[in-house]
């Protein structure tokens, strides 16, 4: 599994973990994020069962198990959090922040030790060491209970499935040319995202944030002007295409 640093300051570090070359071709590639600050760390969307071993081996290169105090699940999907039953054994003292809507569902992945901290629909805020992270509502994009994570200091928005791209092989970590990247995103957004109203609501909320990096859970990361290009493109996109 590849690890890249996407932000580093005196207070905290953002790492993206993904592009696991040993991963089966039958499962979708995912980006996991680790934020480390002083003696604490959080894993954002820790991933599926299949990725637990490479994830554990990779994060231990950067933090100790004791430092990983917190997990975040943007929504309930298996590629987001089906590894929970295994993390529950590795990190019995940890707290999982996830949408309140999905608590009874996510617990099906097996959770005897970890504490579930439900996130209200309006979102919330947590501190990881010296870093402050905001849970930004992204309901119906695509899940009915869904959050992004915004770091105002690093100006990073972990956008979950928004901005996701389905690209084969091991593509580079960052979007280099927006126009040529659209083909990997379009169907995903049109088919997985159900509501134009929810999409527009999210865009107007996110436009108010100061964002340098938009980091989705699949595919390449958007940096600098690519973020605004994405928002423009997304605002024009008609989603919910399976509805006839």
């Amino acid at each position, binding site marked *: 599994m590849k690890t890249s640093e996407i932000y580093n300051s005196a207070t905290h570090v953002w790492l993206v973990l993904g592009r696991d070359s040993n991963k089966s071709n039958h499962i979708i590639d995912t980006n996991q994020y680790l934020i480390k600050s002083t003696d604490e760390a959080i894993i954002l969307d820790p991933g599926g069962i299949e990725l637990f*071993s*490479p994830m554990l081996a990779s994060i*231990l290169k950067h933090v100790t198990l004791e430092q990983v105090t917190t997990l975040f699940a943007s929504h309930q999907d298996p590629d987001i959090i089906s590894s929970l*039953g*295994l993390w529950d054994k590795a990190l019995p003292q940890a707290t999982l922040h996830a949408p309140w809507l999905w608590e009874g569902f996510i617990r099906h992945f097996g959770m005897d030790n970890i504490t579930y901290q439900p996130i209200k629909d309006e979102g919330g805020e947590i501190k990881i060491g010296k870093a402050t992270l905001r849970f930004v509502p992204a309901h119906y994009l695509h899940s009915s209970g869904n959050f992004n994570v915004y770091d105002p200091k690093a100006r990073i928005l972990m956008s979950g499935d928004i901005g996701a791209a389905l690209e084969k092989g091991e593509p580079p970590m960052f979007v280099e040319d927006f126009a040529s990247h659209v083909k990997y995103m379009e169907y995903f957004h049109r088919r997985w995202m159900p509501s134009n109203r929810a999409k527009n609501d999210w865009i107007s909320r996110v436009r108010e944030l100061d964002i340098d990096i938009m980091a989705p859970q699949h595919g390449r990361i958007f940096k600098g002007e690519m973020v605004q290009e994405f928002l423009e493109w997304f605002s024009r996109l008609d989603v919910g295409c399976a509805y006839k």
Partner: protein
Amino acid sequence: MTRNDEAAQAVRNFVRVANIVANLDTILIEAKNLSLTAKNARVVALRAGDSAFGFKPITNFIDEFSDLTIKITKQISQLSSQLFSIALAVVRCSDFQQHLNNCAKSSDNKAISHLQREVNLELMKTIKQLESVITYLESYFEDIQKQMRSAEYIAVTSRVEASNAGEFSESLQSVSDFITGAAKKIKSAINDNLKEINQLRGALR
């Protein structure tokens, strides 16, 4: 046995537990039917009067062993939910162990070997719990088996008594047949479960 095999074995054991629990239903249904049959037989014997005099104590016996079988089966049902959760814990521990072993192939971090030691201990502890519950379960099944031996004996005796009950002979004969059939079904379910327990015990060694 490789770690992958161990994880697959844990799942197979879980399926064995599921088979045991599924067979409990058969035992409980048949035991309840036996209890109903005893009540019906008592009414027939009352109607038959003196000609079925010998049948009355038999209905009491049927009542007794069917009640006891129901009671034991209910105790087993309570134990089986415990058995399920322990078997599930074994599956989860084995799964976690397997993932840690994969992880150890690409990392020599001490935290991983520490987790490996911890999960090995937890797995051993959980397997011991499973063995202990299985021993209880086995003794309960053996108790029911004894009851079914009595049931078979009573079925033979009741057949003799039924033949002396004149016009009620046929009704009482059918009671005897039913006892024989139910005891046979319960014994078969118990035998299946004892076989599963033996295999489960063998797999845990």
